[in-house]
């Protein structure tokens, strides 16, 4: 298939950036979207131009690195997939495709289609852990039974890959789905109880500090989330936060 690509180009953080138009020909419908971009970049290199920089790594939907806004949708037109799992059969021959980076003031563009997601790192560092040292002397793994339902729910939210599609797709640039995933995972597990209140308070505080917006329940994040994490967990985080705020002494 032949395609026209409108791609966001931006030299560095300071550059204003803008859309450039490239054409690619003879793309196989079996190729993945990123493989199509590989072809485009190979072409640009041969033409003596600088290829388009984009983030990607595992190319199987689990590392959370790839992050493209395609035709106005985070991770493109397919559902329950990351950009790297998107295939060209989702597009038509002759189509024009718009390719942009995530847009959020808390995730500034570094270059072309690559953004800086270190705000996510700082949120995790503010409380996304259970304070237990490596010792090999923790109690036996089976000493504390966990109801299967709780373990399964904890897993469902722990499946978050930290890609940032929820932020990119939200009109408020809210990171609440991302934060709710971590808060909920530990809230469902007995190991997470000790620091339960402080964790949600700290993580929400850091989230606000980073400049992410608030949730207005549009549900866009859950639609674009490649791991189908439900917004019901945002409600759970709100309950956790409320209860922690009331009971907290500070």
């Amino acid at each position, binding site marked *: 298939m032949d395609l026209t690509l409108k791609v966001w180009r931006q030299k560095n953080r300071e550059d204003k950036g803008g859309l450039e138009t490239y054409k690619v020909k003879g793309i196989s419908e079996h190729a993945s979207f990123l493989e199509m971009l*590989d072809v485009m970049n190979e072409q640009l290199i041969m033409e003596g131009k600088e290829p388009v920089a984009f*983030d990607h790594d595992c190319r199987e939907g689990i590392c959370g690195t790839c992050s493209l806004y395609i035709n106005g949708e985070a991770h493109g037109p397919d559902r329950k997939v990351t950009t790297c799992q998107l295939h060209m059969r989702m597009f038509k021959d002759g189509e024009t495709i718009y390719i942009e980076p995530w847009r959020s003031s808390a995730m500034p563009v570094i270059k072309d289609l690559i953004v800086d997601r270190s705000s*996510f*790192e700082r949120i995790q560092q503010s409380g996304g*852990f259970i304070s237990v040292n490596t010792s090999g002397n923790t109690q036996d793994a089976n000493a504390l039974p966990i109801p299967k339902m709780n373990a399964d729910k904890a897993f469902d939210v722990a*499946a978050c890959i930290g890609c940032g599609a929820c932020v990119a797709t939200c009109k408020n640039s809210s990171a609440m789905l991302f934060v709710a995933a971590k808060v909920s995972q530990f809230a469902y597990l007995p190991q997470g109880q000790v620091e339960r209140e402080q964790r949600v308070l700290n993580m929400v505080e850091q989230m606000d500090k980073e400049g992410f917006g608030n949730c207005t329940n549009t549900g866009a994040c859950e639609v674009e989330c490649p791991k189908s994490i439900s917004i019901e967990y945002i409600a759970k985080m709100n309950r956790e936060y409320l209860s922690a705020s009331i009971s907290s002494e500070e």
Partner: protein
Amino acid sequence: MSVLDSKIPEGPLKDKWTNHKNHINLVNPANKRNIDIIVVGTGLAGGSAAASLAEMGYNVKSFCYQDSPRRAHSIAAQGGINAAKNYQNDGDSVYRLFYDTVKGGDYRSREANVHRLAEVSGNIIDQCVAQGVPFGREYGGLLDNRSFGGVLVSRTFYAKGQTGQQLLLGAYSALNRQIAKGKVTMYNRHEMVELVKVNGKARGIIARNLETGELERHSAHAVVIASGGYGNVFFLSTNAMGSNATAAWKIHKKGAHFANPCYTQIHPTCIPRSGDHQSKLTLMSESLRNDGRIWVPKNMEDVLAIREGKLKPIDLSEDKRDYYLERRYPAFGNLVPRDVASRAAKERCDAGYGVNETGEAVYLDFASAIQRYGKQEAAIARMENPSAEEILKLGEAVIESKYGNLFQMYEKIVAQDPYKTPMMIYPAVHYTMGGVWVDYNLMTSVEGCYCIGEANFSDHGANRLGASALMQGLADGYFVLPYTIGDYLSNDIRTGEISTESAEFVEAEKEVSDRIEKLMNIQGTKSVDYFHKLLGKAMWNYVGMARNEEGLKKAMAEIKQIRTDFWNDVRIPGDKNSLNPELEKAGRVADFLELGELFAKDALHRNESCGGHFREESVELDGLQKGEAKRNDNDYAYVAAWEYKGEPADAVMHKEELEFKDIELKQRSYK
């Protein structure tokens, strides 16, 4: 005497690790505060090591090329992690896990290391549960287990098909806790490009800030390499696009011996290549072979009709199918180990029976399993005379509950519904058992430089069993290195801060900047990927699933030529002082172009078949095992550790003889 001192402690096998821990030197907490450690890589090994060392009190600097430590490729591991917990009461023990691992590795691993691995395996599960890793559980609330290939017990812990992800996020959370405390300084989007040695000891690295292109000097009292395997030397593999051998190769060039590079695992069940645009390959978990049957058509006319689209695989009657694994290996059938299953698929496809356009695919068929489960479910539901549709529906539901996420992944990539038509699969490069040589303490042949996880050669011999990579990564990082590194660092308590202004640092940085300058100035006519693909092709054709002397010699010559061409004709656009993915790739491919040749050289010298390394010259000639791999314990029961001497072809081999005191060497038979 060999230059390799493995430093295996004295005493009975089962007491070695305990005694060793009891007698090595410790560093007191106040002194730990004055000691810096660099850890390169943040996968299961690197992430867990950095977190543990920081908890103990050392100052840790942690480096990863990704934008977050959570993205290291350990995240993609699917199936599970082994541990000798014996929760299923099926007779598992530390000894059995040790024995299975040594046997599975075709008796080419170091006995003492493997036993230690088995000893600490149970602690890993305890540790991960305490960190909040959501393992799969039974209704009673206790942990569930799975079975994997090559063993007779159920010892694999899992979190659906995303065990690697959950374990890595566990290590990542431990790391985050230390970053927040200021005990770990995290350098994301940084790549280690050189090791710095001062007076023969590893004292730091040169790292390139991938966003700004700046070269940075970082000093430390010890350097830990945890940068993963080198599977991407084949261009196409199940590794991440960025997975590379640069850190491991740089320390090799500075004196760390590189062991058994030819031991590579080619995983039998991956989604086949779909065309020249292919950038990587995707694994379909080994667990699928519990229920899937592997076959190709018996007759060539059916193969051709299927390729032309005139015949559908589901329309081919049973008598016209060749279930070749069940035919060749009646005892193990579809559950033979990975190396055997891969070679059998290649044999059929080489004979012309491959079922897709490229001729490189076989079927993995769930129809029988769907029928079997469907009937079973109908019986449980006490349905009388269930219709064929009802059985199908019930059976598909069972398959979905077991493998749903894998089936969805397959459908997204291939655009075929694997519930309705058999999956197409083909072997792909997956894991590298070889790597940097380390002693019992995980120290390389460079003093103060350690290597852990897939990057070292240690525990898997010539073939790795399923669900053992995660175990080794976390064992090294949580429970082995944190102890053994103290023994070395106890001599460094008076050293004080290490200056980055010394001549050694200046020189190392200059070396790097000259190399980058040289790459940028070539301005040739071909892209980096062009050369990487050529290298991959040479590796796959001559150093892939089956190897012979003629092919390996050819590979060495070809790779050398590709390397020369690369350095004369590669084109790297952009500039060095900014984010430049082509420049990053070029540096990595330059190292692969050297490693590939050493890989072929190692495969050439090892004229025996063992594990993932199959030499066509070394097969059983008669009897029941006719045509199967033939190991040669008399001549090759050693580790081949290569010393860098400039050109890869000039590398000098050092042998570490392997002694098996607790295990009798046997031939692996799956007939």
